[in-house]
């Protein structure tokens, strides 16, 4: 009999292989055939769920299979409600009807200006009324619709920007001077950005760039546009699906964080063991120039917070030597959080890196040129996104450009520092192996905690933590910045942000708690910690600090909610370890209670803490 966990792994790998085949050749027949098996595929792939309403000025139903299959491939089950054809603004305004009943998590507003103000796209600049006025009127309506919707719902809004007109009536004289087609189109897109900013939790999607990338002449099929009001050509359904998924990933907490790179024929040309450090191809002439460009793109990702690691089958020390001392290397030791150079299987190296970084392999991307290594990784760790490099190194840089899964709506200071922070974390692990006992290790770290109470400087980071933290997250609620701000301002709640620094560097905000206060009973409604700092008693110190604060405020009980998910299981007994007792046996949620009178609220002596709890 096969182990059920192994069996689930096989089903997962097979379902992903089906979706990968669709991705490799997304013809209508492949899309439709795979979509017929959607429920079966969704059962085999662990996923988050999102409810998405789709409001469009064209027939959007043909895109549904592509959006849902591409979502599932990213680990998101997207259930879609489609508004009546062409009813974008009325649906937004009348949000109590179909849209309100559906209660979406996210609303996709796919309005094409070409559908609502065709004059602009047909080059008619003053057809009874000025086209600029018609465009402004439509944006007024859309803006009013979004404002009306926002009053009723906090769902995330995703609004497509407008594609560039192609038929330019002034021909060679078309410029972006005032009143030209291009000028009107540009103002419309600027206005859209303003509408999004005013609304909050509303993001403009780069639809124009998507059309431009594929070329307008290829993107639009005038036959299906005129016959069925389906402007997007069938060969681009999948591209559209992937475009939408880019925006869903951060909402579902499905962003990737780590890239694990092979070395030989990936970071440089040739085999280090055969060619030696002086013989590998890396430098200003091809093929070395292709690898330099590839590394530069990786460095750019590292600088905006993606963590880079190396897993190479080579003599231990040899790859490290190249990274340290090859004159043409772009990636240097400071950029690589973790290097595993040995002859052991790569899935073992990846598991080891996951443990070192305290991150789950489902946030990893693995890049290798070898089909054998890629196949082994896909079979052993299907949750890792495995990418096999093309044969021609000149195309490597494009692989980085098309990498899926790293998108975020906002970039915080922590993001930019993340690579360095994880590097410091790996160094700490080395110190740990040298320390005699854990307390001496902790004291050696010289940790400083700083706790912000309703500190609005941390709103963006707090919201981001709720979206990205999956493991140490007691009650996985995803919050927008507005949600956090509201909780900070409410009289009966408190948002606590925990920052950590130590002698290796500043980790920034790593802990978040949302506390609901009543006279004698405080409730830890949300408690989450960044996994990279676990194992240093920071989480229990945070709870001890909160307990002390509750006690000082006159409370007799501190309660904590734990709602199990696939990811947070390792921390199910955290409250127990802090001295809490369970009060319910309901498996969907456990309410833990700490009697403050008898609780130990002392914070270990290895922390410097501010504000210090009063004594």
């Amino acid at each position, binding site marked *: 009999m096969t182990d059920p966990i192994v069996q689930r792994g096989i089903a997962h790998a097979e379902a992903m292989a089906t979706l990968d085949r669709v991705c490799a050749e997304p013809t209508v027949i492949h899309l439709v055939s795979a979509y017929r098996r959607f429920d079966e595929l969704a059962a085999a792939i662990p996923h988050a769920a999102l409810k998405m309403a789709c409001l469009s000025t064209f027939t959007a139903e043909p895109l549904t299979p592509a959006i849902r299959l591409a979502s599932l491939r990213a680990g998101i089950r997207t259930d879609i409600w489609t508004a009546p054809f062409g009813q974008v603004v009325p649906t937004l305004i009348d949000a109590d009807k179909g849209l309100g009943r559906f209660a979406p998590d996210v609303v996709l507003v796919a309005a094409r200006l070409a559908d609502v103000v065709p004059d602009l796209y047909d080059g008619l600049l003053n057809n009874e009324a000025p086209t600029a006025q018609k465009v402004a009127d439509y944006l007024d309506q859309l803006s009013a619709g979004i404002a009306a919707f926002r009053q009723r719902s906090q769902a995330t809004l995703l609004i497509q920007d407008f594609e560039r007109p192609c038929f330019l009536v002034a021909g060679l004289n078309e410029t972006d001077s005032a009143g030209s087609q291009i000028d009107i189109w540009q103002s419309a897109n600027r206005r859209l950005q303003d509408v999004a900013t005013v609304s909050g939790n509303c993001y403009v999607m780069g639809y124009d760039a998507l059309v431009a990338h594929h070329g307008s002449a290829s993107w639009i099929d*005038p036959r*299906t546009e005129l*016959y069925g009001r389906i402007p997007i050509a069938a060969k681009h359904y999948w591209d559209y699906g992937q475009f939408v998924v880019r925006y869903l990933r951060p909402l579902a907490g499905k962003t990737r964080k780590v890239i694990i790179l092979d070395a030989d024929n990936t970071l440089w040309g040739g085999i280090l063991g055969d060619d030696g450090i002086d013989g590998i191809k890396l430098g200003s002439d091809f093929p070395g120039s292709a690898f330099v460009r590839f590394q530069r793109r990786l460095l750019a990702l590292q600088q905006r917070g993606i963590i880079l690691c190396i897993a190479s089958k080579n003599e231990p020390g040899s790859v490290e030597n190249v990274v340290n001392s090859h004159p043409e290397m772009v990636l240097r030791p400071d950029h690589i959080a973790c290097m595993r150079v040995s002859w052991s299987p790569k899935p073992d190296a990846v598991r080891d890196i996951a443990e070192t970084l305290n991150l789950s392999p489902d946030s990893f991307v693995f890049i290798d040129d070898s089909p054998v290594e890629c196949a082994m990784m896909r079979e052993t760790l299907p949750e890792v996104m495995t990418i096999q490099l093309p044969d021609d190194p000149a195309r490597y840089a494009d692989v980085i450009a098309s990498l899926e899964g790293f998108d975020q709506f906002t970039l915080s200071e922590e993001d930019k520092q993340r690579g360095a922070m994880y590097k410091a974390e790996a160094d700490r692990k080395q110190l740990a192996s040298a320390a005699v006992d854990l307390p001496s290790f902790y004291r050696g770290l010289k940790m400083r905690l700083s706790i912000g109470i309703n500190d609005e400087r941390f709103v963006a980071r707090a919201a981001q933590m709720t979206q990205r933290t999956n493991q140490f997250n007691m009650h996985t609620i995803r919050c927008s910045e507005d949600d956090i701000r509201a909780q900070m301002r409410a009289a009966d709640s408190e948002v606590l942000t925990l920052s950590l620094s130590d002698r290796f560097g500043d980790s920034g905000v790593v802990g978040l708690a949302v506390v609901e206060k009543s006279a004698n009973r405080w409730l830890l409604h949300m408690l989450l910690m960044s996994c990279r700092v676990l194992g240093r008693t920071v989480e229990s110190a945070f709870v001890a600090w909160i307990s002390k604060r509750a006690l000082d405020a006159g409370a007799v009980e501190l309660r904590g909610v734990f709602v199990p998910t696939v990811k947070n299981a390792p921390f199910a007994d955290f409250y127990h370890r802090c001295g809490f007792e369970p009060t319910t046996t309901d498996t969907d949620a456990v309410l833990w209670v700490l009697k403050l009178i008898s609780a130990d609220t002392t914070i270990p002596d290895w922390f410097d803490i501010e504000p210090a709890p009063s004594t």
Partner: protein
Amino acid sequence: MKNEERLKAIVSGVLGVGEADIHDSLSSTDVDTWDSLNHINLMTAVEEEFGVRFPTEAMDRLKSVGLIKRDLSSLGIDFGA
């Protein structure tokens, strides 16, 4: 694969009808899943399979397997006599 079988595979794949039930007189009125949405899917899937492009008026007209075969024949796809 013969063109006849290729076409059956496409019709079956898009509409979810068994290949054994697919014959020339099968039309959009016989099959529940052959709705306006799937009709566009069927037209584009046939185009992708055979590397042809139907004129727009054909999209409105090719509502049976036999009609699709006839237009494909006129575009040079051989279905035998």
